């Protein structure tokens, strides 16, 4: 415990050296603006800033990216409350009660609730990260190739099952992502897969250009397609959070924090599912459930706490298993790799202090977020007034610069463009993007560990199913997959209901 506190102190000292406060201030502001602007998401913000921080020291670069991530998830609630338009998909649940509150003339109070809920959520999630990441990291050291293969498969299956509402399309998106990761030279024989003689393709499709395309270019196209709508104006009262609101709903804050962190730690699910799940749980447990959707303070608090707790939650598997918990966390993980850090089980051995540096970064970002939450209302309204016809071309320019900057190849700009167009079509066909991103990130992990496992066992596949952790993970993957088949799901639900009914009938006797 004292060791952990010492490392946390050292983490703060390390993070706050140099001009860190200045970087935290501007990066969180950029994050909030990106999050607040409809059409720009946290994933895109983190991806674009990754290129900007390319030449920075790695701890400053990661501080900037963590601040952007934390700020963007919070910023989405501004437009959700004021315009009834979620700035990021994560803020969709906040529109349900945030906008009705704004229409009742309580926009300021709604933003105060959003600020306090979001601040407490990130703080709760960060505490969980500090407590559980080292433990999970130590446990993950037991994992060998067989287990890591199943971790990757588990990520794809759980993200595919839950991320988009249609598991079949989720799985297809996940495997498309896994395929993208196989393009280029493989590790064992340096054979260029799917290169067709092109030296550019032999180098592989860069993770960041693909992500910038899928989340940047595709979003620009989505935003430009439909007609502009005129949002309802609202007056803004005091944005100072009320302690009474927080104290009254402390159970909701704790429950939403726990749900948000847990969902964040599940591979590929992300902030939007965390917000919706927290909201649904709060509604089920509330004494004033009838107010939900009509301007419930508890509902808004639950959604905001859940989505913000998800941010540190999504970083837990990045640090312990090298498996991102959400799309922005996937980009953050890529940024860690670009900066020479090695997220995953070995992190606890090689650089145990890094976990606490991330904790310190999250706390700094959370504090700066609180500061802006209290002050930044009027300037954000001006930002929201920028017409998309003027904003989107600038975003596309930034996407282009971002794709080019990492390796200075024009090929990466074309990859971004291609990924954007394909990503847009896939989105239009309702293929979820989270499993696709997770597939691209986990592709290498799955590829190497499957082949390594086969080589170690001499071609025998039984260790993939008989080693204890492998067996549990394989069973979970099979269960998730089977439960996503509607007839199986219906049959299991029927049997469960029957068994539960029989149990309840037996109890009075």
């Amino acid at each position, binding site marked *: 415990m004292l060791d952990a506190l010492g490392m946390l102190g050292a983490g703060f000292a390390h993070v706050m050296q140099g001009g860190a406060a200045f970087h935290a201030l501007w990066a969180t502001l950029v994050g909030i603006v990106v999050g607040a602007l409809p*059409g720009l998401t946290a994933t895109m913000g983190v991806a674009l800033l990754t290129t900007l921080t390319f030449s920075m020291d790695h701890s400053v670069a990661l501080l900037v990216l963590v601040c952007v991530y934390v700020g963007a998830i919070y910023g989405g609630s501004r437009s959700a409350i004021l315009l009834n338009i979620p700035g990021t998909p994560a803020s969709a649940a906040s529109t349900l009660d945030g906008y009705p509150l704004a229409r009742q003339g309580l926009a300021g109070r709604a933003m105060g609730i959003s600020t306090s809920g979001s601040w407490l959520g990130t703080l709760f999630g960060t505490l969980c990260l500090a407590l559980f990441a080292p433990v999970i990291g130590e446990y993950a050291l037991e994992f060998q190739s067989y287990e890591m293969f199943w971790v990757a498969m588990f990520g794809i299956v759980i993200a595919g099952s839950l991320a988009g509402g249609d598991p079949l399309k989720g799985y297809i998106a996940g495997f498309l992502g896994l395929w993208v990761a196989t393009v280029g030279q493989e590790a064992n024989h340096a054979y260029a897969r799917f290169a067709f003689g092109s030296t550019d393709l032999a180098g592989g499709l860069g993770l960041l250009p693909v992500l910038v395309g899928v989340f940047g270019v595709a979003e620009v196209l989505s*935003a430009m*397609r*439909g007609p502009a709508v005129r949002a309802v104006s609202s*007056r803004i009262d005091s944005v100072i959070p009320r302690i009474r609101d927080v104290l009254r709903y402390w159970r909701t804050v704790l429950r939403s924090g726990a749900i948000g962190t847990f969902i964040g730690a599940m591979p590929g699910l992300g902030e939007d599912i965390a917000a919706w799940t927290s909201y649904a749980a709060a509604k089920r447990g509330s004494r004033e459930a009838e107010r939900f959707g009509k301007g419930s303070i508890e509902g808004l608090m639950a959604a905001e706490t859940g989505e913000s707790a998800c941010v540190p939650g999504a970083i837990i598997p990045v640090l312990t298993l090298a498996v991102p918990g959400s799309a922005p966390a996937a980009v953050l993980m890529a940024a860690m790799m670009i900066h020479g850090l090695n997220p995953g089980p070995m992190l606890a051995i090689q650089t145990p202090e890094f976990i606490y540096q991330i904790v310190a970064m999250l706390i700094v970002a959370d504090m700066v977020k609180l500061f802006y939450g209290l002050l930044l209302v009027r300037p954000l309204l001006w930002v929201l007034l920028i017409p998309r016809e*003027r904003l989107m071309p600038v975003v596309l*320019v930034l996407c282009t610069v971002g794709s080019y900057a990492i390796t*200075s190849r024009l090929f990466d*700009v074309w990859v971004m463009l291609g990924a954007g167009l394909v990503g847009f079509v896939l989105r239009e066909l309702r293929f979820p993007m989270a499993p696709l991103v997770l597939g691209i990130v986990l592709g290498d992990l799955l590829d190497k560990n499957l*082949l390594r496992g086969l080589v170690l066992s001499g071609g025998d596949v039984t260790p993939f199913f008989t080693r204890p952790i492998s067996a549990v993970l394989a069973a979970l993957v099979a269960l998730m997959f089977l439960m996503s088949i509607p007839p199986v799901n219906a049959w299991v639900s029927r049997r469960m209901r029957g068994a539960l009914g029989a149990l309840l009938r037996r109890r009075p006797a």
Partner: protein
Amino acid sequence: MSESGEAPETHPPFAGERAPVSPRADLIAAAVLLAFGLGVLGLALRMPTFVEQSGTGLTAPGIVPGFHGTVIAVLSLLLGLRAVRRGGLRGGGGSGAAAGVPAATKREDALRLFVAAALGTLYAGFLVGRLPFWLATALFVFAFTAGFEWTLGRAGRPRRLIEAAALALGTGWAVQLVFEDLFLVRLP
């Protein structure tokens, strides 16, 4: 703190993201993905196995992409069968997200999308790398902003064009300054 807000014009970017698409669209997507999956499988099978080097062939580069291709093909087949069961082969293709939207609106949306995609492709695919970056950027931003704002009507058009030109030149200059000079990032 008491402040009042204006009425900003914004487009909800995530609206309808969860609305289902028509079975016909699913069927076409399934056919394309099935062909893609089978194509990946075919290419994976044609990859060398390196049996001489590894002794077992277990490190063959085609194993993993072959597995992915097979799964994509099988899942696409299931998607196609589901689309057929939902009426993908019937005329009209069933109801989808676009059902109920007037034809004129659909045409206008398609035109906006085409213009945005074409300008983006022209910029990132052709202009960047051929022209100085600031010039390519300024041309693109001006064409994009002026083009989309052209439909707003004659009133105020000269002013909007001047603003678009200022935005274009400002973006070209600012991106060069911030990325190349401040953050030492190389530009195309």
